[in-house]
């Protein structure tokens, strides 16, 4: 995660916004969360060593992570969704009933409010960071509107060609706008020709798989540095306390001896190799999907102890039923033969029961080329073990 945070800070330092994209459960939102903490309390850097000669116990330390944007930093978090609009992000007009009648009162959305924050003489903030989770769940082009231009640092104050804010919704008098209400309750006016402040930075996440989301258009996309988030087996190995160097390659001789964590690790790897080959790497399964299979659990007296092997197999089976298989079904929708191949239905283990079979009519006279419905977690534990181990190969 630390390298991703370094990448984001580096992009901001170069005057670029950042888009984290990848399949679900690859740690995108976690990066945002860690970045959020880092901005409030800079963590240790990955490089550099400092020595405190007076400290005999722990004399060495890392310097603090260098934050590349001016501080203090105001951090704002938002999530785009289908009802999210320009009015929420840039500028909305809300009816206000007064004794004189009804008028439309301008209210700043998150992006414009960030600009107003930095020009507010009473504010101590020097930068504003906007976290946008799920940027492609809303209609981003509509949400940003003409403010898409100001995603580009060149057109902001101090840039190569600063442009005035094109807010035609506002009325101006004597060179100043009408009052704009801010979410905190303040009201401000901006001068005609107001330019967008430089130090507003955006980091957003985008799911590369979800069919319910819309792809962001190229005009928006090119205004972001893209950081790809991939399924990470090293993270999974760390989570399960596995040494990923010593995980065996499954062979004819050893596949029946794999423990549940080795099996889960190899299973995710094999599924993702197949998915990348069949559908493309952007459809791979995130390592976070297996986070529901813990290596340790808390005892009643508050101590951590390893989860028993049988329980781990059961949790793996439950995670398969509730999380992994629905994801596979979704990805292989309309490709039943490829799913059958992935699950090795025609190539089951030579002996013993196996979880995935073809569906057969009750009369036994007709076998369809379709998968029989199964809840792996309800099968005998030996079948569970054999099935997942077999699937690693």
């Amino acid at each position: 995660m630390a390298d991703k945070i370094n990448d984001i800070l580096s992009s901001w330092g170069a005057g670029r916004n950042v888009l984290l994209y990848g399949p679900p459960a690859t740690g995108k939102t976690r990066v945002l969360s860690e970045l959020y903490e880092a901005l409030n309390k800079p963590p240790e850097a990955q490089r550099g060593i400092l020595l405190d000669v007076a400290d005999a116990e722990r004399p060495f330390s890392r310097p603090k992570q260098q934050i590349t944007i001016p501080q203090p930093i105001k951090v704002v978090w938002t999530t785009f969704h289908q009802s999210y609009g320009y009015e929420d992000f840039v500028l909305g007009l809300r009816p206000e009933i007064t004794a004189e009648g009804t008028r439309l009162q301008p209210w700043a959305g998150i992006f414009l409010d960030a600009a107003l924050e930095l020009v507010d003489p009473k504010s101590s903030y020097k930068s504003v960071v906007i976290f946008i989770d799920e940027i492609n769940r809303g209609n981003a082009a509509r949400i940003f509107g003409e403010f898409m231009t100001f995603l580009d640092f060149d057109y902001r104050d101090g840039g190569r060609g600063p442009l005035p804010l094109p807010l035609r919704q506002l009325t101006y008098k004597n060179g100043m706008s009408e009052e704009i209400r801010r979410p905190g309750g303040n009201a401000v006016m901006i001068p005609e020709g107001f330019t967008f402040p430089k130090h507003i930075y955006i980091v957003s996440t985008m799911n590369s798989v979800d069919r319910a989301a819309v792809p962001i258009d190229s005009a928006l996309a090119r205004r972001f540095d893209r950081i790809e988030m991939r399924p990470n087996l090293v993270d999974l190995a760390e989570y399960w306390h596995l040494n990923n160097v010593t995980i065996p390659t499954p062979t004819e001789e050893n596949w029946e001896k794999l423990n549940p964590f080795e099996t889960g690790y190899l299973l995710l790897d094999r599924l993702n190799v197949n998915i990348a080959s069949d559908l493309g790497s952007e459809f791979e399964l995130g390592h976070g999907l297996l986070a529901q299979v813990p290596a340790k659990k808390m005892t009643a007296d508050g101590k951590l102890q390893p989860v028993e092997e049988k329980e781990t197999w059961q949790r793996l089976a439950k995670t398969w039923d509730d999380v992994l298989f629905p994801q596979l079904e979704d990805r292989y929708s309309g490709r039943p033969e490829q799913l059958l191949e992935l699950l090795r239905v025609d190539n089951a283990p030579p002996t013993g029961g196996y979880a995935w079979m073809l569906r057969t009519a009750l009369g036994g006279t007709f076998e369809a080329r379709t998968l029989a419905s199964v809840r792996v977690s309800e099968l005998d534990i030996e079948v569970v073990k054999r099935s997942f181990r077999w699937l690693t190969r």
Partner: protein
Amino acid sequence: MPQKLNIDRIWWRNVQPGEFYNIERIHRIEGGGGSLYIEIPSSIVPDTLDFLDATGANVDALPVITIQAGVVGQPGLTGPIEFHRKAGSRLRIARQNRQQPNSQRHPAWTSACGFPSAPDDVRNKEEAFPYFPDGGLRIYIAKTVEGDYYAGFTKGRPPVDMTPNHPMWNLYPQGRVVGGVIEAD
């Protein structure tokens, strides 16, 4: 709070129980020998020479290199550390037996600074072993970006809250690691 120093590299050496015995025991023992120094095996000699600003030097013709090193935990205190050549393209940190007449044990590696110690009359490695820290013993020398040296040691296992990103993580090695150099960048 005093200003922290920027470190360029940390040289370190895993001290084995046998070496611990040799630098603690009476220097003259019946039947001869044993070393009164800490050996630097050939595997880490190139990194050590680099650390001492003698990169690529012919170790078999190397003159004595003496550095003056401060003491971690005792600001203001310093002492010399001598690196001598040794047969087989090795090096040694000379005169580290604390009981030999011309002992030059660095002050950072003495019991006054918390360095483990065995009784003066300890007779063999087995007798010294109870005084050897569970989890091991390492000596280190840190070099600042300005070229100043500071010596210290670690003993036992890593603190439970120490993470792999911590610069001292490698000063608590797992398994049989002889030593090496930790780079700041």
